[in-house]
Protein backbone atom coordinates (compact mmCIF):
# COMPACT_ATOMS: atom_id res chain seq x y z
CA UNK A 1 0.00 0.00 0.00
CA UNK A 2 1.31 3.42 -0.86
CA UNK A 3 1.43 6.34 1.52
CA UNK A 4 -1.44 8.81 1.56
CA UNK A 5 -1.18 12.55 1.09
CA UNK A 6 -2.43 14.91 3.77
CA UNK A 7 -5.26 15.90 1.47
CA UNK A 8 -6.35 12.29 1.08
CA UNK A 9 -6.21 11.71 4.82
CA UNK A 10 -8.24 14.88 5.39
CA UNK A 11 -10.86 13.65 2.96
CA UNK A 12 -11.01 10.25 4.65
CA UNK A 13 -11.26 11.95 8.06
CA UNK A 14 -14.14 14.05 6.78
CA UNK A 15 -15.91 10.91 5.55
CA UNK A 16 -15.41 9.38 8.98
CA UNK A 17 -16.72 12.55 10.60
CA UNK A 18 -19.95 12.51 8.63
CA UNK A 19 -20.33 8.75 8.96
CA UNK A 20 -19.84 8.72 12.72
CA UNK A 21 -22.10 11.77 13.12
CA UNK A 22 -24.85 9.86 11.41
CA UNK A 23 -24.11 6.76 13.50
CA UNK A 24 -24.19 8.80 16.72
CA UNK A 25 -27.60 10.24 15.84
CA UNK A 26 -28.92 6.73 15.18
CA UNK A 27 -27.56 5.44 18.50
CA UNK A 28 -29.01 8.48 20.26
CA UNK A 29 -32.50 7.82 18.93
CA UNK A 30 -32.24 4.13 19.82
CA UNK A 31 -31.28 4.94 23.41
CA UNK A 32 -33.30 8.14 23.75
CA UNK A 33 -30.14 9.90 24.93
CA UNK A 34 -27.79 12.35 23.36
CA UNK A 35 -24.55 10.99 21.99
CA UNK A 36 -21.32 12.97 21.62
CA UNK A 37 -18.81 12.10 18.95
CA UNK A 38 -15.11 12.88 19.04
CA UNK A 39 -13.31 14.31 16.04
CA UNK A 40 -12.23 11.17 14.21
CA UNK A 41 -8.64 10.28 13.54
CA UNK A 42 -7.56 8.93 10.18
CA UNK A 43 -4.21 7.23 10.37
CA UNK A 44 -2.22 4.88 8.23
CA UNK A 45 0.12 2.71 10.22
CA UNK A 46 1.85 -0.66 10.35
CA UNK A 47 -0.49 -3.36 11.63
CA UNK A 48 1.43 -3.82 14.88
CA UNK A 49 1.05 -0.10 15.69
CA UNK A 50 -2.62 -0.17 14.70
CA UNK A 51 -3.24 -2.62 17.53
CA UNK A 52 -1.26 -0.47 19.93
CA UNK A 53 -3.29 2.73 19.38
CA UNK A 54 -6.46 1.05 20.57
CA UNK A 55 -4.99 0.06 23.93
CA UNK A 56 -2.91 -2.68 25.56
CA UNK A 57 -3.18 -5.91 23.57
CA UNK A 58 -4.28 -8.03 26.55
CA UNK A 59 -7.08 -5.70 27.65
CA UNK A 60 -10.45 -7.39 27.42
CA UNK A 61 -13.02 -5.82 25.14
CA UNK A 62 -16.47 -6.58 23.94
CA UNK A 63 -16.06 -6.41 20.19
CA UNK A 64 -18.73 -6.18 17.53
CA UNK A 65 -17.55 -6.81 13.99
CA UNK A 66 -19.74 -5.84 11.05
CA UNK A 67 -18.34 -6.89 7.67
CA UNK A 68 -19.29 -4.49 4.87
CA UNK A 69 -19.89 -5.97 1.44
CA UNK A 70 -20.78 -4.53 -1.94
CA UNK A 71 -18.77 -2.18 -4.14
CA UNK A 72 -16.06 -1.95 -1.50
CA UNK A 73 -14.98 -4.36 1.21
CA UNK A 74 -14.51 -2.99 4.68
CA UNK A 75 -15.01 -3.99 8.27
CA UNK A 76 -16.62 -1.94 11.00
CA UNK A 77 -15.36 -2.74 14.49
CA UNK A 78 -16.93 -1.47 17.69
CA UNK A 79 -14.91 -1.88 20.88
CA UNK A 80 -16.44 -1.53 24.33
CA UNK A 81 -14.44 -1.77 27.53
CA UNK A 82 -16.34 -4.05 29.93
CA UNK A 83 -17.64 -1.30 32.28
CA UNK A 84 -18.97 0.64 29.29
CA UNK A 85 -20.66 -2.43 27.83
CA UNK A 86 -22.25 -3.01 31.25
CA UNK A 87 -23.52 0.55 31.38
CA UNK A 88 -24.94 0.38 27.88
CA UNK A 89 -26.63 -3.00 28.39
CA UNK A 90 -27.72 -1.82 31.84
CA UNK A 91 -30.00 0.77 30.20
CA UNK A 92 -32.08 -2.26 29.18
CA UNK A 93 -31.43 -4.16 32.40
CA UNK A 94 -29.25 -6.87 30.85
CA UNK A 95 -25.70 -8.18 31.30
CA UNK A 96 -23.26 -7.90 28.36
CA UNK A 97 -21.85 -11.44 28.61
CA UNK A 98 -25.26 -13.15 28.35
CA UNK A 99 -26.92 -14.16 25.07
CA UNK A 100 -29.27 -11.17 25.40
CA UNK A 101 -26.35 -8.85 26.07
CA UNK A 102 -24.43 -10.10 23.04
CA UNK A 103 -27.54 -9.73 20.96
CA UNK A 104 -27.98 -6.15 22.14
CA UNK A 105 -24.34 -5.26 21.45
CA UNK A 106 -24.73 -6.84 18.01
CA UNK A 107 -27.79 -4.69 17.41
CA UNK A 108 -25.90 -1.56 18.44
CA UNK A 109 -23.18 -2.62 15.98
CA UNK A 110 -25.79 -3.16 13.31
CA UNK A 111 -27.39 0.25 13.79
CA UNK A 112 -24.10 2.13 14.01
CA UNK A 113 -22.53 0.24 11.13
CA UNK A 114 -25.55 0.61 8.89
CA UNK A 115 -26.02 4.33 9.49
CA UNK A 116 -22.30 4.99 9.06
CA UNK A 117 -22.12 2.95 5.88
CA UNK A 118 -25.31 4.41 4.40
CA UNK A 119 -24.05 7.95 4.52
CA UNK A 120 -20.65 6.86 3.22
CA UNK A 121 -22.31 4.99 0.35
CA UNK A 122 -24.36 8.06 -0.60
CA UNK A 123 -21.35 10.35 -0.57
CA UNK A 124 -19.20 8.20 -2.79
CA UNK A 125 -22.05 6.69 -4.83
CA UNK A 126 -21.38 3.07 -3.94
CA UNK A 127 -23.65 0.18 -3.08
CA UNK A 128 -22.62 -0.95 0.38
CA UNK A 129 -24.40 -3.14 2.84
CA UNK A 130 -23.59 -4.61 6.22
CA UNK A 131 -23.40 -8.38 6.82
CA UNK A 132 -24.75 -9.70 10.15
CA UNK A 133 -22.72 -8.55 13.16
CA UNK A 134 -20.45 -10.95 15.05
CA UNK A 135 -19.99 -10.34 18.75
CA UNK A 136 -17.03 -11.52 20.82
CA UNK A 137 -15.51 -10.90 24.21
CA UNK A 138 -11.76 -11.25 23.94
CA UNK A 139 -8.38 -9.56 24.12
CA UNK A 140 -8.05 -6.33 22.15
CA UNK A 141 -4.99 -7.61 20.29
CA UNK A 142 -6.69 -10.88 19.35
CA UNK A 143 -9.77 -9.10 18.04
CA UNK A 144 -7.88 -6.56 15.96
CA UNK A 145 -5.31 -8.93 14.51
CA UNK A 146 -8.04 -11.40 13.51
CA UNK A 147 -9.98 -8.59 11.84
CA UNK A 148 -6.99 -7.04 10.09
CA UNK A 149 -5.79 -10.38 8.71
CA UNK A 150 -9.20 -12.03 8.39
CA UNK A 151 -9.23 -12.09 4.62
CA UNK A 152 -5.80 -13.66 4.42
CA UNK A 153 -4.50 -10.68 2.46
CA UNK A 154 -0.90 -9.65 2.92
CA UNK A 155 -1.34 -6.15 4.23
CA UNK A 156 1.54 -4.14 5.65
CA UNK A 157 -0.40 -1.13 6.75
CA UNK A 158 -3.89 -0.45 7.97
CA UNK A 159 -5.97 2.66 7.42
CA UNK A 160 -7.88 3.25 10.60
CA UNK A 161 -10.73 5.70 10.86
CA UNK A 162 -11.36 5.91 14.57
CA UNK A 163 -14.14 7.82 16.37
CA UNK A 164 -15.18 7.72 19.99
CA UNK A 165 -18.89 7.89 20.83
CA UNK A 166 -19.96 8.99 24.28
CA UNK A 167 -23.47 8.44 25.58
CA UNK A 168 -24.42 11.39 27.78
CA UNK A 169 -25.45 10.89 31.40
CA UNK A 170 -24.27 7.29 31.21
CA UNK A 171 -20.48 7.67 31.16
CA UNK A 172 -20.31 5.10 28.44
CA UNK A 173 -18.02 5.34 25.48
CA UNK A 174 -17.00 3.10 22.66
CA UNK A 175 -14.48 3.12 19.85
CA UNK A 176 -15.72 2.88 16.33
CA UNK A 177 -13.21 1.74 13.71
CA UNK A 178 -13.68 1.52 9.97
CA UNK A 179 -11.09 -0.69 8.33
CA UNK A 180 -11.37 -0.66 4.54
CA UNK A 181 -9.52 -3.34 2.61
CA UNK A 182 -6.46 -2.13 0.69
CA UNK A 183 -8.47 -2.08 -2.57
CA UNK A 184 -11.35 -0.37 -0.79
CA UNK A 185 -9.29 2.66 0.22
CA UNK A 186 -8.15 3.15 -3.35
CA UNK A 187 -11.75 3.00 -4.57
CA UNK A 188 -12.88 5.46 -1.91
CA UNK A 189 -10.20 7.96 -2.92
CA UNK A 190 -10.93 7.51 -6.62
CA UNK A 191 -14.59 8.26 -6.04
CA UNK A 192 -13.58 11.40 -4.22
CA UNK A 193 -11.39 12.38 -7.16
CA UNK A 194 -8.17 12.24 -5.14
Amino acid at each position, binding site marked *: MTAFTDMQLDALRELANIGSGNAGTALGSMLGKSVDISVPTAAVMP*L*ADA*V*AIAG*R*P*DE*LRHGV*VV*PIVGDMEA*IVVLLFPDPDARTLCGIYGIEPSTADGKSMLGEVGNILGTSYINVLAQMVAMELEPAPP*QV*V*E*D*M*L*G*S*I*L*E*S*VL*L*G*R*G*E*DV*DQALILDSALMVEEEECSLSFLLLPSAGGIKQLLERLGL
Partner: protein
Amino acid sequence: METVVRMGEAFASRTPGDALACIGLGSCIGLALVDRSQGVAALAHVMLPVAAQPDPPQRFKFADLAVPALIALAVEHGALRTRLEGVLVGGAAMFQFGGSGQDIGARNAEAVTRLLEQSHVPVTATATGGGIGRTIRVHVGADMHVTAREAGGREEHLLGAPLAGKVAYA
Protein backbone atom coordinates in the same frame (compact mmCIF):
# COMPACT_ATOMS: atom_id res chain seq x y z
CA MET B 1 12.95 -8.51 31.29
CA GLU B 2 9.89 -9.25 29.18
CA THR B 3 10.09 -8.63 25.45
CA VAL B 4 6.80 -8.32 23.62
CA VAL B 5 7.07 -9.78 20.14
CA ARG B 6 4.62 -7.94 17.93
CA MET B 7 3.05 -8.99 14.62
CA GLY B 8 5.67 -10.00 12.08
CA GLU B 9 8.53 -9.78 14.58
CA ALA B 10 10.80 -12.35 16.25
CA PHE B 11 13.14 -12.29 19.22
CA ALA B 12 15.61 -14.73 20.79
CA SER B 13 17.25 -14.86 24.21
CA ARG B 14 19.57 -16.97 26.32
CA THR B 15 19.51 -14.65 29.34
CA PRO B 16 18.07 -16.40 32.42
CA GLY B 17 15.05 -14.53 33.77
CA ASP B 18 14.06 -13.11 30.38
CA ALA B 19 10.54 -13.63 29.12
CA LEU B 20 9.34 -13.46 25.52
CA ALA B 21 5.65 -12.97 24.81
CA CYS B 22 3.12 -12.63 22.00
CA ILE B 23 0.18 -10.93 23.68
CA GLY B 24 -3.35 -11.20 22.32
CA LEU B 25 -2.90 -13.69 19.51
CA GLY B 26 -5.99 -14.18 17.37
CA SER B 27 -5.54 -15.89 14.01
CA CYS B 28 -1.75 -15.41 14.25
CA ILE B 29 0.60 -18.05 15.61
CA GLY B 30 3.07 -17.51 18.41
CA LEU B 31 5.80 -19.99 17.48
CA ALA B 32 8.34 -20.73 20.20
CA LEU B 33 11.49 -22.74 19.50
CA VAL B 34 13.35 -23.76 22.63
CA ASP B 35 16.52 -25.69 23.37
CA ARG B 36 16.15 -26.62 27.01
CA SER B 37 19.65 -28.11 27.13
CA GLN B 38 21.26 -24.77 26.28
CA GLY B 39 18.62 -22.49 27.78
CA VAL B 40 17.95 -20.71 24.48
CA ALA B 41 14.52 -19.64 23.25
CA ALA B 42 13.21 -17.86 20.17
CA LEU B 43 9.69 -16.60 19.58
CA ALA B 44 8.03 -15.40 16.35
CA HIS B 45 4.61 -13.79 15.79
CA VAL B 46 3.56 -15.34 12.47
CA MET B 47 0.66 -13.71 10.60
CA LEU B 48 0.04 -15.56 7.33
CA PRO B 49 0.76 -19.00 5.85
CA VAL B 50 2.69 -18.09 2.69
CA ALA B 51 4.64 -15.08 1.46
CA ALA B 52 3.16 -13.60 -1.71
CA GLN B 53 6.49 -12.17 -2.88
CA PRO B 54 9.92 -13.86 -2.75
CA ASP B 55 11.82 -11.44 -0.51
CA PRO B 56 9.41 -9.49 1.70
CA PRO B 57 10.68 -6.92 4.21
CA GLN B 58 9.34 -8.85 7.23
CA ARG B 59 10.18 -12.53 6.86
CA PHE B 60 8.74 -13.50 10.25
CA LYS B 61 5.28 -12.52 8.99
CA PHE B 62 4.92 -15.63 6.86
CA ALA B 63 5.06 -19.24 8.05
CA ASP B 64 7.05 -20.47 5.04
CA LEU B 65 9.87 -17.97 5.67
CA ALA B 66 9.49 -17.60 9.43
CA VAL B 67 10.17 -21.23 10.34
CA PRO B 68 13.63 -21.51 8.72
CA ALA B 69 14.50 -17.96 9.81
CA LEU B 70 13.52 -18.66 13.42
CA ILE B 71 15.55 -21.88 13.48
CA ALA B 72 18.55 -19.88 12.25
CA LEU B 73 17.92 -17.18 14.87
CA ALA B 74 17.78 -19.74 17.70
CA VAL B 75 20.98 -21.40 16.48
CA GLU B 76 22.71 -18.01 16.25
CA HIS B 77 21.84 -17.51 19.91
CA GLY B 78 23.47 -20.80 20.87
CA ALA B 79 20.70 -23.36 20.44
CA LEU B 80 21.61 -26.80 19.14
CA ARG B 81 19.70 -27.46 15.94
CA THR B 82 18.90 -31.05 16.97
CA ARG B 83 17.67 -30.12 20.45
CA LEU B 84 15.03 -27.63 19.29
CA GLU B 85 11.41 -28.19 20.27
CA GLY B 86 8.48 -26.25 18.86
CA VAL B 87 5.45 -24.89 20.70
CA LEU B 88 2.50 -23.36 18.80
CA VAL B 89 -0.11 -21.08 20.33
CA GLY B 90 -2.89 -19.12 18.56
CA GLY B 91 -4.48 -19.80 15.19
CA ALA B 92 -8.00 -19.09 16.44
CA ALA B 93 -11.01 -18.43 14.21
CA MET B 94 -12.85 -15.64 16.00
CA PHE B 95 -14.84 -14.37 13.02
CA GLN B 96 -16.11 -15.55 9.65
CA PHE B 97 -15.44 -13.20 6.80
CA GLY B 98 -15.74 -15.64 3.90
CA GLY B 99 -13.56 -15.45 0.83
CA SER B 100 -10.07 -16.88 0.48
CA GLY B 101 -9.24 -15.94 4.04
CA GLN B 102 -11.59 -18.64 5.36
CA ASP B 103 -10.11 -19.76 8.65
CA ILE B 104 -6.76 -18.11 8.29
CA GLY B 105 -5.96 -19.29 11.83
CA ALA B 106 -6.18 -22.98 10.91
CA ARG B 107 -4.16 -22.39 7.74
CA ASN B 108 -1.48 -20.63 9.77
CA ALA B 109 -1.28 -23.54 12.23
CA GLU B 110 -1.12 -26.09 9.40
CA ALA B 111 1.59 -24.19 7.56
CA VAL B 112 3.79 -23.77 10.64
CA THR B 113 3.33 -27.43 11.63
CA ARG B 114 4.20 -28.64 8.12
CA LEU B 115 7.29 -26.47 7.94
CA LEU B 116 8.51 -27.67 11.34
CA GLU B 117 8.00 -31.26 10.25
CA GLN B 118 10.01 -30.65 7.07
CA SER B 119 12.75 -29.12 9.22
CA HIS B 120 12.66 -32.12 11.62
CA VAL B 121 11.80 -29.98 14.63
CA PRO B 122 9.34 -31.85 16.88
CA VAL B 123 6.24 -30.00 18.06
CA THR B 124 6.09 -30.69 21.78
CA ALA B 125 2.97 -28.75 22.74
CA THR B 126 0.21 -26.75 21.10
CA ALA B 127 -2.76 -24.62 22.12
CA THR B 128 -4.35 -23.72 18.80
CA GLY B 129 -7.72 -23.38 17.08
CA GLY B 130 -11.05 -22.68 18.71
CA GLY B 131 -12.55 -19.22 18.80
CA ILE B 132 -10.64 -17.54 21.59
CA GLY B 133 -7.58 -15.30 21.74
CA ARG B 134 -4.43 -16.39 23.57
CA THR B 135 -1.12 -15.15 24.92
CA ILE B 136 2.10 -17.19 24.75
CA ARG B 137 4.94 -16.55 27.15
CA VAL B 138 8.38 -18.18 27.13
CA HIS B 139 10.36 -18.02 30.36
CA VAL B 140 14.06 -18.30 29.58
CA GLY B 141 16.53 -19.97 31.94
CA ALA B 142 17.42 -23.24 33.63
CA ASP B 143 13.74 -23.96 34.25
CA MET B 144 12.75 -22.99 30.72
CA HIS B 145 8.98 -23.13 30.37
CA VAL B 146 6.27 -22.01 27.98
CA THR B 147 2.80 -20.95 29.03
CA ALA B 148 -0.43 -20.09 27.22
CA ARG B 149 -3.26 -18.02 28.59
CA GLU B 150 -6.70 -17.70 27.03
CA ALA B 151 -8.57 -14.38 27.17
CA GLY B 152 -9.88 -13.99 30.70
CA GLY B 153 -8.31 -17.34 31.71
CA ARG B 154 -5.38 -18.60 33.75
CA GLU B 155 -1.78 -19.10 32.68
CA GLU B 156 -1.46 -22.80 31.68
CA HIS B 157 1.89 -24.56 31.41
CA LEU B 158 2.51 -26.07 27.98
CA LEU B 159 6.16 -27.05 28.21
CA GLY B 160 8.75 -27.51 30.92
CA ALA B 161 6.38 -27.83 33.86
CA PRO B 162 4.64 -30.76 35.58
CA LEU B 163 1.48 -30.20 33.58
CA ALA B 164 3.23 -30.15 30.19
CA GLY B 165 0.97 -31.53 27.55
CA LYS B 166 -1.24 -30.89 24.63
CA VAL B 167 -4.30 -28.70 24.55
CA ALA B 168 -5.93 -28.90 21.15
CA TYR B 169 -9.28 -27.73 19.91
CA ALA B 170 -10.68 -29.42 16.84
